């Protein structure tokens, strides 16, 4: 049973028989030893939740990316479904690359796609990890008809235990001009803030419960009042955070 001088390998070849190196002075004359520019891709649904209160709705917010360490494509989608109508349907596509240790620059496009008239925007922004582990993003938008907009987002993961995580989160939208068709007034338009307590059954699957606050301000609040909608809502949420 011991291989001492047994069984000559039929197709044994010496290294010399193999294709010779193309460029002996290169780091890898026989080709790359591994792929350190591998393309990875992931999709994260941060919010997939029912919002319950004076009125009930379904809300999603997620993003997907694919690419290398240097070059990535991002797809971001969010919206809220209430009584058969989708609102806040902001869909974005970015090219992203790192500009510092913790921040990426992103450039791309945004399309407001929901039950209201659509709007296209050019988009540029930065996203990353601020000191104290705050996840932040700031994005500016410019539309073809000269409207400008901005959005600020921040969130923080507070570990109560290794799997029980409390996440405060806030999102703010600003516009330079009124857009009555989309019920938007200039200035600070709206705030969507939440406090969610999730339990990571696994890293990739975490049910949560929490409260969210949605506030509308300025002209946007006026439009809401005109529609008979609330301008300040605090609701209870149940949902799941999941990623692949």
């Amino acid at each position, binding site marked *: 049973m011991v*291989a001492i001088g047994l069984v000559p390998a039929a197709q044994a*070849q*010496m290294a010399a028989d193999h*294709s010779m190196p193309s460029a002996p002075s290169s780091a890898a004359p026989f080709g790359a030893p*591994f792929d350190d520019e591998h393309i990875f891709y*992931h999709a*994260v649904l941060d919010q997939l939740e029912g919002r319950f209160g004076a009125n009930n709705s379904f809300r999603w917010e997620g993003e997907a990316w694919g690419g290398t*360490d240097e070059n990535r494509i991002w797809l971001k989608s969010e919206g809220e479904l209430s009584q058969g109508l989708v609102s806040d349907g902001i869909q974005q596509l970015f090219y992203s690359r790192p500009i510092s240790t*913790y921040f990426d620059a992103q450039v791309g496009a945004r399309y407001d796609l929901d039950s209201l008239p659509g709007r296209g925007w050019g988009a540029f922004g930065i996203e990353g990890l601020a000191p104290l582990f705050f996840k932040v993003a700031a994005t500016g938008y410019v539309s073809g008809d000269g409207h400008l907009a901005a959005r600020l987002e921040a969130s923080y993961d507070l570990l109560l*235990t290794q799997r029980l995580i409390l996440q405060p989160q806030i999102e703010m939208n600003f516009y330079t001009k009124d857009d009555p068709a989309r019920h938007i007034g200039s200035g600070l338009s709206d705030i969507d803030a939440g406090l969610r307590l999730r339990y990571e059954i696994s890293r990739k699957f975490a049910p949560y419960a929490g409260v969210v606050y949605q506030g509308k301000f300025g002209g946007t609040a006026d439009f809401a009042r005109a529609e008979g909608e609330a301008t300040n809502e605090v609701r209870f949420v149940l949902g799941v955070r999941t990623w692949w």
Partner: protein
Amino acid sequence: MSKNIRCGTLGRRQFVEGLAVATAATALSPTRGWATGEGSRPSTLLGDRFDLTVGSTPLNVTGRSRLATTVNGLLPGPILRFREGDLVTLNVRNTLQEPTSIHWHGIVLPNAMDGVPGLTFRGIMPGETFTYRFPVRQSGTYWYHSHSGMQEQTGLYGPLILEPRGREPYLYDRDHVVMLSDWTDEDPMTIVSNLKQQSDYYNFGQRSLGTFLKDTKRDGLAATVDDRLMWGQMRMSPTDIMDVSGATYTFLMNGKAPGANWTGLFDPGQRVRLRFINGSSMSTFDIRIPGLEMTVVQADGSDVDPVAVEEFRIGVAETYDVIVRPTQSAYTIFAQAEDRSGYARGTLAAREGLAAAVPPLDPRPLRTMTDMGMGGMAHGGSSPGGIGTHKMDDMDKQGTPATPPGPAPTSGMDHSKMPGMPQQDMSGMDHSKMPGMSHDMNGMDQGKMPGAPAAQQAIIPTSNADGVDPKSLAGKPSVDNVAMEPRNRLAEAGDGLDGNGRRTLTYADLRSIKPTTQGGPPTRAIEFHLTGNMQRWIWGFNGKKFSEAGPIAVKLGERIRFVLINDTMMEHPIHLHGYLFEVENNQGNRLPLKHTINVKPGERMSFVFTADAPGHWAFHCHLLYHMEMGMFRTVLVS
């Protein structure tokens, strides 16, 4: 490269059971219970001609069947025993659907036989047989593993024992290989992908509300908040110990999970040689055998002056041979992962079926400012009297009484007596403003002249391997930290070990049994910063990945020093192919020879070698996923 025998007059009564297996019944095998896989295959192969088959083998480690990558159907692969002076021939047949390779780790051989796809050959294609043939010019304990893709993680590794022609300078009656490894049911690429998305994916020992409350109780609210703010400002976590943990890994000893209890037999009173090999992809282990003193006699295959220890750390790809003399009936061989997320375990027993108590896991280490390369307080040294206060804090957390701190030898500072100073961190402490405190005198001096006092090392031209100015690294996407005050940490056992009350091996203890510095002083030094960005999970040298850098050109015959500065907060086991290098650890002309050195966070260290073998030699971090992410260079000797 025959070994000098220092104690040549000692009789050898070793019974090399590996020899026995070639002729005797399997029951005599020292590798009883060796490896998971087909039971009827021989587990030790001896000779100068070997036929090895790389293939996929269904395996059940955790309760679920998975396909492992194996040699001759075994995990680990068979123990290969070569004899020093032989010309060995190894026919490696690839029955996988993908290319494979076998690299003979630590073996000094012709470049074309080194087995690194891309560098020394194109790999072994599916269905192909490749013949390795090389002279055996050394002896000791080594290992082999795949250098292709993730095959090393999925099982393609095994022990290499090179029997010396002459007598060995120590006695033993029995000889057991103890090969440690990490097994996962996950696809290795999934693990890397998970880390790219969330770098703390496998870290379930993070700071939380619970540890905040505990620390507040111990240190006070202000100190605890300061500490959290300090780490938060840096966006670093002191709990980053291992990237991949027991959350996915089952730690194996000779292919056996802890519950399967690999057992090595002895007769009471016998001297037992244990050949520890860390064949893991990503896991550092701390090894001890409660109740037994271990005498380290070999490191990375090269004999060293005996060092008696109770515990030692083994980085990925390192080997240590120890001799123990058991008298009781059973002892636990306990190899806990550095992050304490699990352990590999086996038993040394007088007969089959015995077991000894398995000790509890030690407290999880926490990284400190020293690991960030910020110098830290002067007493990070491993002398038992001079434990850093942060280490004692770790012990406090577990309710273990902390050893009273003695005066720190290098600085004479005793923090515990300094009023108003938070015990566990350096936040808010500005050393430069503290009168009379010259922090880290030891580390500073040696940091600038790695490995030896200035008097012993002449100034030689030093250049960065990639022509990079280290100051330019800060803020780059690929770099999250640049060590401001890297220091010599060879005399430290490492995070989680220093100050634990046990006598633990350090690199400073290693002293070659024979003179090693035949080549004289080096004429040139090449500096490598080990860099990374934990959040982005990017790893490299000097802020560059392999694909972004060219080869490191070294002239044939050149005597050269490699200086390694670890800017990251983790250990990196750095491996140079084709050479045994001399670690500059102040042991005069008896610097220990190694093929892999586990560089501590915040450390600056160096080694020297004579570039007498031409070719494309791989130089890389032996954490498999760090290598795959590009923490790899070609050293081109021509």
